[in-house]
Structures are given as structure tokens and as C-alpha cells.
């Protein structure tokens, strides 16, 4: 029944009265997401597309029994919003907001870990489980088809690109997880791999990585020893020059790990084919499925 989000999820939108929050609440409701409450301090009693708004997560949980949260709160307050959701034991907590200060990220990540809560992001497009018609995120839902492949990615639009390619090739997705483009994110690639490898409705995995960090290397090493399900990978940034800013934080290259070459080598060592172009992912999946 996919991972993280399913039909039983009762979703809270934090920052629902902001422009992004309102816009994507509509988009999520249209897709079918079970959004049962919104929250913006001071807006108790308002409604957004029929969704009741509360002053605090605690209120929303008490009144509407919310189980998961998606956060559209501006960056200076996003860390606090995540702490509030974590304190109320919501799981997962999806932080869409970008430009969250790294000090705030580090704190929230470790508070969530200590409680065993999956925090997704920050700077993530979110999570989508097409089979349950549940999207807790900002991705265009129509490019994700229902199926048996677990997709995890540190990128946003590149994920849509790859998902669209899979859809065109009639390959569907169990759940797609945007892990977030910031260097410090909550749920890591290896944790996402573990979830998918335990999910009986996921038959194969796609890992979309990019240069920077060692998340892919760690995941590849884990998969080599512990995961039987077939997988395909893609790494963006083969031609990125060392040490240059590449738009968001995941995209700095340095040291001997973190390079596209190191990541690709790690996947190949684990027997996981790596596409050269985004369109290769669907092709490689066809070969292994």
C-alpha cells in the first residue's frame, strides 16, 4: 500500500492561508488528497476551500485527528512549524518551504529523528502516492501514474521529467518521494530505500540523485548488501564544474565523494544501472522489469 502516505492519511496544511498554501490546497484537494484541516496562527474559524483553519497544530489534531502535515510556512518560520508538527506526532511532516536556514534545518532534522518521525525536505516537492490518489506536495499530479515503482529524488522538476518519461512508457509509481534539494534534509536516500524495500507494493526503485553529499553512495552501499529489488539510478551534474554554485545547495561538488563519477561508480558497484539521460530511466526500467 505504498509508503508514507496512503488513503488513511489525514493531512494538515500548515500555512494554509498564505498564497502558496491556498493554491496548493486547491491542487491537492483536486487531486484527491484527504486534507482535513489547515492551520495559521490567528486564523481559527476561517475556511480555505471548505477546509477548517485552526490556530495551532494541537487544535487541529484535537478537532480533526490529523496524522500528517504539509508546510507552506515562510522560511523564517518553517523550522518552528515543523517542530510544532513533530511535537504533535504528525508523520510524515513534509516541508515544502525553500531557503530555510541550515541551523533551523539541522535542529528540526534531529528532533524528528529522535521521535522516529519522517520529515521530508525542506525544499521538497513532496510525496505522491498515485494509487491512493494522495498527493502531499506541489508536483503536477498528472505526470505520475499508478504502478509498482518507488521513485525517490533530490530534485523537483527533474523528477517530473523522469516520472513523465515513465508514464509515457506505461510504467507506474507506487510512491514518489521528493527528498528535498537542500544539503541538509530530513528523510535521506537510504531511509527511503529501506521504506521501499519493505513495501510489498513496490517491485522496483528509481533513485534520482545529483552531485554533492554522499547520500547516493551510502544508499548504493546499503542496497548492494541488503536490497533484492531491482533499481535504476540517474545522477545529474556530470558536467558541473567543481566548486561552482549550481542553483541549489545539493549541487556543489567537492572532495572525492559527492562527484557524479563517484555516485555512478557506487551504483554500478551495487549492480544498479545508471542512465545517462533522464529518458534512459524508463528504458532501463523496461529492461529490468
Amino acid at each position: 500500500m505504498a509508503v508514507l502516505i496512503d488513503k488513511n492519511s489525514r493531512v494538515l496544511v500548515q500555512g494554509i492561508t498564505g498564497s502558496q498554501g491556498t493554491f496548493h490546497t486547491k491542487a491537492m484537494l483536486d487531486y484527491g488528497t484527504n486534507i482535513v484541516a489547515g492551520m495559521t496562527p490567528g486564523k481559527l474559524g476561517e475556511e480555505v476551500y471548505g477546509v477548517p483553519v485552526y490556530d495551532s497544530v494541537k487544535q487541529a489534531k484535537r478537532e480533526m485527528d490529523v496524522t500528517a502535515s504539509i508546510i507552506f510556512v515562510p522560511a523564517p518560520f518553517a523550522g518552528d512549524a515543523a517542530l510544532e508538527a513533530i511535537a504533535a506526532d504528525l508523520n510524515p511532516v513534509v516541508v515544502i518551504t525553500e531557503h530555510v536556514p541550515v541551523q533551523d534545518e539541522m535542529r528540526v532534522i534531529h528532533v524528528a529523528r529522535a521521535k522516529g518521525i519522517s520529515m521530508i525536505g525542506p525544499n521538497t516537492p513532496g510525496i505522491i502516492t498515485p494509487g491512493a490518489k494522495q498527493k502531499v506536495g506541489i508536483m503536477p499530479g498528472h505526470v505520475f501514474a499508478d504502478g509498482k515503482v518507488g521513485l525517490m529524488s533530490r530534485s523537483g522538476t527533474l523528477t517530473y521529467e523522469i516520472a513523465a518519461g515513465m508514464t509515457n512508457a506505461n510504467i507506474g509509481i507506487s510512491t514518489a518521494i521528493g527528498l528535498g534539494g537542500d544539503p541538509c534534509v530530513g528523510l535521506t536516500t537510504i531511509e527511503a530505500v529501506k521504506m521501499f524495500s519493505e513495501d510489498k507494493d513496490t517491485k522496483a526503485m528509481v533513485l534520482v540523485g545529483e552531485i554533492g553529499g554522499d547520500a547516493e553512495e551510502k544508499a548504493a552501499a546499503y542496497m548492494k548488501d541488503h536490497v533484492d529489488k531491482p533499481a535504476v539510478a540517474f545522477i545529474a551534474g556530470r558536467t558541473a564544474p567543481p566548486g561552482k554554485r549550481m542553483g541549489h545547495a545539493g549541487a556543489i561538488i567537492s572532495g572525492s565523494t559527492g562527484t557524479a563519477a563517484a555516485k555512478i561508480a557506487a551504483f554500478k558497484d551495487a549492480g544498479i544501472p545508471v542512465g545517462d539521460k533522464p529518458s534512459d530511466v524508463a528504458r532501463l526500467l523496461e529492461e529490468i522489469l
Partner: protein
Amino acid sequence: MVEAYVQDILHVPFCGDVFMKLFEHEAKEIFRTFGMPLPLGGVAYTPEEARTRAIEVGKPVAVKAQALTGKRGKAGGVRFANTPEEAEALAKDILAMRINDLPVKSILVEEKLSIQQEIYAGITVDRNERKYVVIGSAAGGMSIEELAETSPGKIIKRHVDPLGDLQAYEAREIAIDMGFKGKQINSLAGLFLKLWSIVEEYDVELTEINPLILTTDGRFLAADARLNIDDNALFRHKKLIENMKRDTVEQNEREKLATAEGMAYVELDGDIACICNGAGLTMATLDAVSIYGGKASTFLDLGGGADAERVEKGVEIAMKYDKVKAILVNIMGGITRCDDVANGIVSAKQDGDITVPLVIRMVGTNEEEGQRILNEAGIPFLQTMEEAAQKVVTLAEGEDA
């Protein structure tokens, strides 16, 4: 760059690509407010001021170019003067220099130190552990890079509890592990604790003292100072920015334009400008261009909400870079209307703003109408990024011919 050393030390890249870098003298002003021991001296913007600083110091001085790069030493940006007159003359030379293609606008005049030992001390974000990491080595200075390769065991690393603080005993353990003894343990630990206070207070992504000098008379002094602040946290440091009276980053005209629009812009050595939305997609597009034999001149990530106007703006900025011979626009849209974008591009082309071949690939509403409009205007609109990459490479080669 010294950053690269740290990255090598850690064998991990940094958490965060975007940071406001402070000049050495700015970093040292902050250091001073935290009681960090510093050499005597001060900043100067003219040779005359440099002379005054040297007189104030009252002994032989180092005259140091203020530049946001680690290469200033090799570039001749750090020199020594025995008299104020010498300092003035050196200052004149250095203020006329360009380092890494950036002009030297200020210099730091500081007492020349009598060196017993050069030490490395720094704190940065370890993105893999998602914690701050304190780094120290008894062998600092220019040799740290080499040391990281030859004797990584001499580099001490210690993560800081992400829900707590660097504790004094941890700082002492670092000093002990670095090989210090006696009273130096507490002195050095105090220095690390100050560095940690600065990191916490100013949302620091990277701070380094390299070299941290142990003088022949047994004092620790921060001879250099590097301080990069998390751009995302600058809203918490408005006062700092006000006091600096300068842009938070040194950028050329095109970089400034992109930053003002909230776009990420990097100039490269090739001739094809890649304009996309999302860093991952932009990198993948650069990679695709490379696969078909091309080379990118420009990484331009339009960021969120790529619409007709934003695409046009991106093309305008890209056109200002004289290396650009062809442009590839690759937008993975959702609700973006391709016909709107097509109309905007066509109008820009007719106005003469676009003087090189341009290829568009876009996913969104009204794709067919957009394709029709562009094809009519002689601008290729392609459906896959592979086709688009292939096409733009051919067009850029045509420009070469």
C-alpha cells in the same frame, strides 16, 4: 581556496552552496566582539591609511589584500613592510592588483607575527551528518591541503550535538587530540568556544582561522579569518548587513541581475546557455548538451513558478554574456501555458533582443499551439530534452562555422 582544503579534510562537500562571504577584516571585526585574540592592526582603503595603520601598529607589518579567495598569497597579495613608508608603498601596489579577476578595494595592515607554530581551526556544516563539525589541526597554514592527503589522522574532527552546544570539555578534548599540553589546552579550547559562539550567533556555514598562529611568546592569535554566513539566514542579521555597507556577494552585472530575479546563474567556459527551471533539471540539461558534443556557457535556473515573463527575463540575462552562441530553454512546467511563452519569445526575437539561435523545449498546457507559433517564427520547439539538446549543439556549431 581554503574551503577546498576543508572539503578534502572532511571528504564531504559543504552543506549549502550559498553563503555570504566576509572579507578578512570584516570577519575579524566580528571575531573582536567575541574576544578572539587578534594581531594588532586595522583596515585601510588608501596607501595613506595603510601608513597610518602601520604607525599605529608601531612595528613591522603584514600588508594583506582583502579578497574573497584563498589564492591571494600566491598572487602576491600578502607582503611585509618594516616601516610605515614601506607599508604605504606596498599598499599602493596591492590596491592596484586584481586577484581572481576582482579588484582589491581594501587592505589589512597587521603586526608581523613571530611564529612558533601554524595551526588550523575551523567549524563548518557537515551535510552528511547534518551537524556542525569542529576541525582542528596542529599543522595549519598552507600545508593543510597536503596534510589532509598524507596524514588525515592529524586532522581532528568533532561533531557538535545538533540540539545542544559545543561544550568546554569537548573543546578541550579537541585541543588535547591536536597534541597540545599544559595551559595551551585551555587557551585553545577557549578559542574554539568563541568560534562556536560566532557560528551560533551569525548562522555561519563556514569559519576558519588558517593559520592560527602560536607566537614565539606562547600566544594564540588569529592571523587569518574566514567567515561565510548562510544566505538563507540573513534575515536574522540585518544589522550586520547594514553595517557592512556593501553587497553581500561580489558579482558581475549578469550575476547581479539574476540574483535580483531570484535565479541561480553560473557562467562556464562553453557557448550554450541552458535556461531551465530547477537545479537538477538544469544540471541534467547541461549533461545532455555535453553528451551530444556541446559545452555550456551558462547554468541558469529560473527557480519556482517559471512563466512566460520569467523565461523572457532569463533569456535576456543569458544574452548579455558574450560567450553565448546558442540558447536552450528547457522548462518542465505544470500549468505554464506554452503559447504564452512562445508569444513572449517571438516578440523578444522581433525586438532584436535575441541575436543567437534559440531552442525551446517545454512541457505544459497548449504545447501544440506553442510549437506552431515558434515554428512559424523559425525557433525550434522540441518535445524531448534529448532532441532539444541535440538541436542546440548543432546550432551552436553552425554559429562557429
